[in-house]
């Protein structure tokens, strides 16, 4: 029986060629000759995955001497991860930046959009996505080559995501220590500030910096105190408030307006928050020398048999100058109202 491929004359009865292994009796055996076909709906999905793979993987090119030495150092997983604090730096050092250039570009775009929309849900989602892309860039090359077990890979991803989240949280605080931010809890029409806006705050250089009436300031919640075990202010969120009363001035509320030193203030510029409209401050008292009367939507609860009275309200709204962290200067979010605060 002659093999069709190599023309070797085999012993009769052989199923395969002794020399090349080709099937000899294929014609006699029922062989499926119709190939499997791709469902049409797979095509776009495969195109996307192929495009992603095509830009991630490239043939390893022999590296020049210096780059090879750097690559030997950076090929260690831990060192590679450390270098990837800046996305793509490890790849740049080892001359493989081309493999991740699209991911780095995507990371930059997502991060920029996240920063621009910071303070909104969209901003949080985008920054989370940027962290994910960063983790992928840091891990996918060396670490994933060494870690093949799925559970270990997931664990590695989670650890890196947590570390990067801490990094992303700490970086702006280290790089821009003079800035902070917070959401407003009430609207001030005269300043074009709406409830929920995210304001950027410049930190005060000195605690005793004099502040003017109407200034929007950031109050750190960890500086809030119980007052006489009667009124407790909410300590869960950062608060932006408006300075209404300066040291030594008396503040009260009449006809839903602030009256400071017996002079009524414009409610468009100095709106009375909702909670104070329910508990009007009828009797004013002088603001202590080292404090300000700051108006905002405090979340106040009364303990025990105590009643919400004027003294408790004054106590809740009086903030020491040392507890004021900064002065708001820019409406950051939403985008359409972005601008400096006059």
């Amino acid at each position, binding site marked *: 029986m002659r093999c069709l491929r190599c023309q070797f004359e085999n012993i009769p009865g052989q199923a395969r060629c002794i020399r090349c292994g080709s099937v000899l009796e294929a014609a006699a055996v029922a062989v499926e000759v119709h190939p499997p076909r791709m469902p049409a709906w797979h095509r776009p999905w495969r195109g996307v995955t192929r495009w992603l793979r095509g830009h991630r*993987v490239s043939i390893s090119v022999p590296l020049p001497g210096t780059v090879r030495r750097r690559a030997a150092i950076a090929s260690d997983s831990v060192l590679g991860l450390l270098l990837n604090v800046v996305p793509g730096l490890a790849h740049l050092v080892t001359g493989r930046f081309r493999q991740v250039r699209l991911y780095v570009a995507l990371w930059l775009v997502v991060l920029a959009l996240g920063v621009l929309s910071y303070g909104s849900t969209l901003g949080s989602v985008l920054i989370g996505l940027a962290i994910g892309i960063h983790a992928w860039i840091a891990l996918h090359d060396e670490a994933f080559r060494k870690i093949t077990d799925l559970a270990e890979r997931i664990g590695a991803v989670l650890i890196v995501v947590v570390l990067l989240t801490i990094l992303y949280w700490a970086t702006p605080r280290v790089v821009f220590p003079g800035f902070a931010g917070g959401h407003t809890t009430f609207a001030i029409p005269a300043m074009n500030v709406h409830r929920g806006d995210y304001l950027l705050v410049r930190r005060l250089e000195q605690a005793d910096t004099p502040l003017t009436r109407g200034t929007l300031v950031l109050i750190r919640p960890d500086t809030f105190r119980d007052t006489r075990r009667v009124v407790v202010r909410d300590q869960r969120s950062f608060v932006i408030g408006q300075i209404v009363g300066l040291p030594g001035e008396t503040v009260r509320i009449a006809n839903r307006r602030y009256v400071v030193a017996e002079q009524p203030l414009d409610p468009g510029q100095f709106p009375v928050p909702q909670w104070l409209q329910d508990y009007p401050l009828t009797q004013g008292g002088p603001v202590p020398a080292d404090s300000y009367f700051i108006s905002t939507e405090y979340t106040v609860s009364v303990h025990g048999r105590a009643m919400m009275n004027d003294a408790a309200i004054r106590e809740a709204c009086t903030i020491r100058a040392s507890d004021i962290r900064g002065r708001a200067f820019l409406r950051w979010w939403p985008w359409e109202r972005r601008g400096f605060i006059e």
Partner: protein
Amino acid sequence: MDRFSRLEFGDEATPPGKRSRSEPRRDADYYHKEAIKYWLAADYELALRNYSRALEQNSTMFEAWAGQVLMLIELGEYPEARVWADKALRSFPEHPELLALKALACARDAKMDQAVAYSDNAVGKDHLTPRVWLVRAEVFRDRKGPIAEGCINKAIACAGKLLPVVKLEAGRVLARKRNYVLAIQHLKEAVQDLPQAPLVWYELGCCQARLGLPEAVHSLEQSHHLRPDWDLPKQMLRKVGKRGFFRGLLGLQ
């Protein structure tokens, strides 16, 4: 006479015994030739069907197995092509051309590491076919240096009577490498031997259009004339006809 004898079943209407002399015998070779004809007309679906028919007649026909894998690759069904190449490899173990086709499927599917491995494996075997070198040229087309050109030269050297097809494939590989000048050289030689193949004219037209050569219109029209139902030459002709904003601004063409 049985009751179904007068029913018409297209090609099968004429009984084998009464086949006229002018009509060719529909055996595996016939379907193989038909498949190549459809492939050169860029009708990969029909080519694949004809390769399957050839295998129905003769399941040991290696060219038909390889042709099926190649058509699946041409149709963009790379995982299926790999599966089918594996199946063919069961009948033709370690065949360099099947390994090369598997490498091609991997390369087109952007799995370059696997593509290089399969191509290395294929090149290490004996009795290399031109396809092995053509695939290697495609796998290594992004590398610096004339590696792809060297592989193409080797493919041409061992092409034999397959030279026109090898020239066509070489032109296509070089076009993917964006070496349009050399691609046009190969495709022009292929066109001389395969003047009735729309695929060759189309590839030639595309390369000429990339270089902005006016001959592109003729090549694409020729392709369209040979196979009017094919959309790609028509689309390309429309693209060539357009000037574009920047070309218009600069007064080019």
